[in-house]
């Protein structure tokens, strides 16, 4: 009898083990109403909220759900440990930006062709989203030329000089690594010029890539909608 109990217990822990593995494969995520009409109530299957009729969403996708503030998701850019100088001569790591929606583009300030248009796109997105929290980040692909001083001048010239705009200078190696995370390609084609991908990327508050806008002169609408949805979710939780 005692033995049976023991094996039953073992069996239970085995089940628990399987279940926890399962969690990792993201097959059985609990669902929750995005509006939290019923507080923290969760459902095991996807459905609709009985109160507001909205589709329930996997909890993992929800923002600020993380119990542990220090936890970094596997796909988060906050796993990068590189250090960066800002236009205000501060040294930061990407994870210092945790908690806000991040809109990121890679440019260089001496660029005459594509970058002014990318910068204009960023400004348009900023104006349309029009919140106080989203961070707009411009990472230089030419860190040798784009010193913090130069980035500061560029920020002022382009009216991008408030705390929502962050310009970053890294090492040549770290910039290369960062471009790989964004799937941005670039190559120095002359001492002064680079050819590069024109991609604006949106990251959620946990540093996970949620949207990319590719190309010049494309419609910003989708990107704006994405940012507003993310930004709004946070404000409501707060």
């Amino acid at each position: 009898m005692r033995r049976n109990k023991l094996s039953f217990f073992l069996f239970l822990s085995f089940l628990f083990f399987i279940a926890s593995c399962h969690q990792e494969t993201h097959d059985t995520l609990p669902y929750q109403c995005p509006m939290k009409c019923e507080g923290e109530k969760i459902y095991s299957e996807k459905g609709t909220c009985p109160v507001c009729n909205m589709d329930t969403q996997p909890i993992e996708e929800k923002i600020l759900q993380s119990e542990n503030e220090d936890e970094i998701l596997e796909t988060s850019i906050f796993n990068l440990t590189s250090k960066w100088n800002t236009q205000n001569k501060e040294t930061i790591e990407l994870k210092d930006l945790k908690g806000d929606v991040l809109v990121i583009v890679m440019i260089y300030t001496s660029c005459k062709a594509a970058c002014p248009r990318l910068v204009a796109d960023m400004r348009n997105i900023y104006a349309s989203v029009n919140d106080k929290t989203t961070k707009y980040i411009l990472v230089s692909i030419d860190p040798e030329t784009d010193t913090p001083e130069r980035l500061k001048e560029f920020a002022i010239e382009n009216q991008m000089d408030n705390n929502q705009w962050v310009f970053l200078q890294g090492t040549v190696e770290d910039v290369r690594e960062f471009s790989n995370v964004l799937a941005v390609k670039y190559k120095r084609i002359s001492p002064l010029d680079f050819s590069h991908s024109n991609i604006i990327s949106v990251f959620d508050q946990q540093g996970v890539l949620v949207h990319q806008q590719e190309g010049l002169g494309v419609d910003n609408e989708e990107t704006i909608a994405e940012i507003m949805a993310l930004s709004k979710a946070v404000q409501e939780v707060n």
Partner: protein
Amino acid sequence: MKRISFIVLSIFFIQTNFLAQDMPAMKRINGGDFVPLYGSNEARVSVETFLLDIYPVTNEQYLSFLKTNPKWQKSKVISLFADKNYLSKWENDLSPNKEALPNSPITNISWYAAKAYCDCIGKRLPTMDEWEYVAMASETKRNAQRDSLFNQRIIESYETPQTYKKEVGSTYKNYWGIYDMHGLVWEWTSDFNSVLISGESRKDVDTDKSLFCAGGSVNATDLMDYAAFMRYAFRGSIKANYCIQSLGFRCAKSLKK
């Protein structure tokens, strides 16, 4: 008891030293300039003198790295840094692919992993220009770009399946004393993502016309170098978290100035 732990510790240190002892296995590559495939006729690229590993990194060497750097083990690596094919044929964290020989090149590793390996032993990945500069040397010539037999041999090696199963050093030794630049595995370079060709679906770049195999290819420096086209196209099509069976790496090192 103390004695045993002492022995265990010593074995541990001998193992970790393994990588360090491997350091001299590099050759000096004298700098120079050359015209890479993608440049126009005028655009010569210069490469400074540097050191390059004689062989690609092997399964055995990578295993030693994993022992001291558990965060790169198969079960622990994070998805930002490696796709699901990372070490896909390894049975578990410290059991390499059984089909592969200890001295075969490590493959199914991402760019991030390759970079971390080189960083860990004070080296770095070679740049694409450095790699191409060394790869254009045949057994006897520093620059065999115009040697049609050499080029043909490279293309034939690309058509040979499963060359990653061979041991390192099993192909040819080139002018610099470097083995396996062609005929074993493709190799990661630090700036592989500076090739700006993109799929038809992406409109994100001002395309580098000289890299297109179709109409644009007439701009290529040397039409004979079809093999190089294949390499650039391959680089242009991969991402840093990809782990591919035929893709390995070797490390380089700058000379102290």
